[in-house]
């Protein structure tokens, strides 16, 4: 079974376009002085209409994770274990992702991680995954 892939929307497209160029671009609200994720039409919390796109390093820390020996859904049945992670970017926002190139016993909450760009050329989309830095 094929894994489901994201379908960018008019508002989120710059994020996915950035990933295709192997860059991490997220939104920033000057009035709130805050980076946000995921992309939105207005800044969450303030609803300020001042979101702008900024490129960030994509580096961050492992906020938490789990190693799943049972698939979270059928498309992952042949891709076990799943390294399901929440990453906190250095700029603040957290995002859901998967860890690649990681040994389960070496993972620690708070460890440094860096981005890995997983291209899906047939579908024209790139996923943002992470690996220990």
């Amino acid at each position: 079974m094929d894994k489901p892939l994201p379908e960018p929307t008019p508002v989120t497209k710059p994020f996915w376009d950035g990933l295709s160029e192997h860059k991490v671009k997220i939104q920033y609200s000057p009035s709130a002085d805050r980076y946000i994720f995921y992309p939105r039409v207005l800044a969450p919390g303030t609803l300020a209409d001042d979101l702008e796109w900024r490129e960030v390093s994509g580096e961050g820390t492992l906020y938490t994770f789990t190693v799943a020996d049972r698939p979270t859904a059928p498309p992952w049945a042949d891709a076990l274990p799943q390294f399901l992670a929440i990453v906190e970017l250095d700029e603040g926002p957290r995002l859901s992702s998967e860890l690649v190139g990681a040994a389960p016993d070496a993972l620690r909450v708070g460890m440094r991680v860096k981005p890995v760009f997983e291209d899906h050329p047939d579908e024209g989309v790139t996923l943002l995954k992470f690996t220990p830095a």
Partner: protein
Amino acid sequence: MGLRGEAAIVGIAELPPVRKPTGPARFTIEQYALLAKAALDDAGLTADAVDGLVSHGIAESDMFAPATLSEYLGIPVNYGEVVDLGGATSAGMIWRAAAAIELGLCDVVLAVVPGNYNLPVSQTRPPREFGYFGASSNKYGSPQAEFEIPYGNLGQNAPYAQIARRYAAEFGYDPRALAKIAAEQRTNACATPDAVFYGQPITIDDVLASPMVADPLHKLEIVMPCQGGAAVVIASQDAARRTKNRPVWVKGFGERVTFKTPTYAADLLRSPISAAADNAFAMAGIDRGSIDTASIYDCYTITVLMSLEDAGFCEKGKGIEFVNSRDLTFRGDFPLNTAGGQLSFGQAGMAGGMHHVCDGTRQVMGRAGDAQVRDCNTAFVSGNGGIMSEQVALVLQGD
């Protein structure tokens, strides 16, 4: 501000959860009728007394649930609504019903949650597709479709395991304390004949020996889906005087809804029940030390541990110490989930949340049988929807 404590739970009906459906397949609309009748019978009230209806929606119809149910039951209402708070739906229904009564809108409100997923199958229409997305939406434009599902962040086991993992990093972890919650709730289930695990005691070691599903969560720390259903009747003071049971007054409530996916929690380890419980106790004018029994939403053992802390029964980060130093059985010094909780009584789908309302109510009514807590007058009930993302607290009390 808030409730004056002048609306009471006066009747309950909770089907004993079963692992596989028994009896004829029933549409949810039919389950609404059967559960409503059972709860009204329990209260000693007739259908014509009802003038409010709180539902979770019906599988046979995507829209217009209150009107459809009102028509099917033949009960016109002054207040009809759908509550959509996942596992906090049931507790959320109770305070909405109580508020409608105290506002003078209603005299008697039904809160019904079907929990039997064995629905009749059409001979002509294609079968209903459930897919594997569960509580996540894979529709175009859904944040989950775009930012969660492609990374396999689906279902509940992984996110709850992520919470437990973060908890361990911040506060330390004792797998035996988490397992003790499951084992002691099982002791309670073994005193509750309706529980799905009645007659099957387990030990802490049994829990730790069960398969690891999502590290650090073991199989016996994770709720098992069942079939069932529950309904509750909430009534005004006047109507409550006409009923058969000891009225269980809704003295206080709180509700807090914060996010859908825990990745976006402001702080993954400070759950919304904190604000909800503070509001509930303040509204009730009752302190936490006066609680005789707590029925805490227990989809996972980590949910219970965090809820004990965040609802203020112990200091943040001291939940493991609290669990290890207390007897959580119905005979103990902190009676918790006295019918076994959803982990051991059974989680009948969406009706699992109503189990905690029924558990607290049975105790205050004095109807908990062998699992009855002595002199039980005041109960705390929690509801938890999503992944500790939308939570409701109730304080219930008898006269």
